[in-house]
């Protein structure tokens, strides 16, 4: 299952402004099956990923550390 979320980077480490980026996240098949089979709330740990983002003002790349629940992946 894919969903799009928007994250806000403020302040941008390159230009100091505020930028919004849409993030597409996919839930792994196993997590979806568990969620469909049980009514229990899904307690899961969180993990960190480093995402490369582009500052739209100065066109320079920077990195952001994002925290995602386990079982979720960021896709292109």
């Amino acid at each position: 299952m894919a969903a799009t979320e928007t994250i806000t980077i403020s302040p941008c480490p390159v230009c100091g402004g505020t930028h919004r980026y849409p993030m597409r996240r996919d839930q792994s098949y196993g997590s979806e099956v568990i969620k469909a089979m049980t009514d229990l709330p899904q307690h899961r740990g969180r993990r960190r990923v480093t995402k490369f983002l582009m500052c739209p003002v100065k066109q320079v790349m920077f990195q952001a550390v994002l925290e995602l629940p386990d079982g979720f992946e960021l896709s292109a």
Partner: protein
Amino acid sequence: MKNPNNNGGPNSTYEQIKVVETSPTSPHNEALFEAGKALLIQSIEIGRDFCKFMISICAGAIPVYLGLLKFVLPESHTFTTWQGILMVTPLLLFACALVVFVCGFFPQRSRFSLDVAEVIEEERRTTISRRYTCSWLGFCIFLVGLVVGALAIISVYAPSTGASPP
């Protein structure tokens, strides 16, 4: 640089993704990014280069095998049916492997738009997958051909050099 708004409220419209920290790209991560770019671009070419290399190998294996057979076969020799099949099989296997590698070498015959990234990604994935399958299949056929060819040559060479029965 810590992001001051990482309580999930104004930072994201959804609670799931949180921004922990932002910073300029470190030299290590810059190198990783460049490595990723190289992988993305070269992954198609590597499969194609391997297929091209193996086309030459398979094409060369056929005359080499025939030359070896001519070298080891005695002047007058009659073959049984099974010996004949054993000697011809490697040639067929080399030819099959050659065809498989040629299929892997050719580009995909499809049209796609350069404007849509997902379409390019899908075409890239299909091409890599096809080349991967052709490479492995062709290599396995070639390997079997090598083994059968070696057995055929040994089966002909050994009896022809052995002592004749009393």
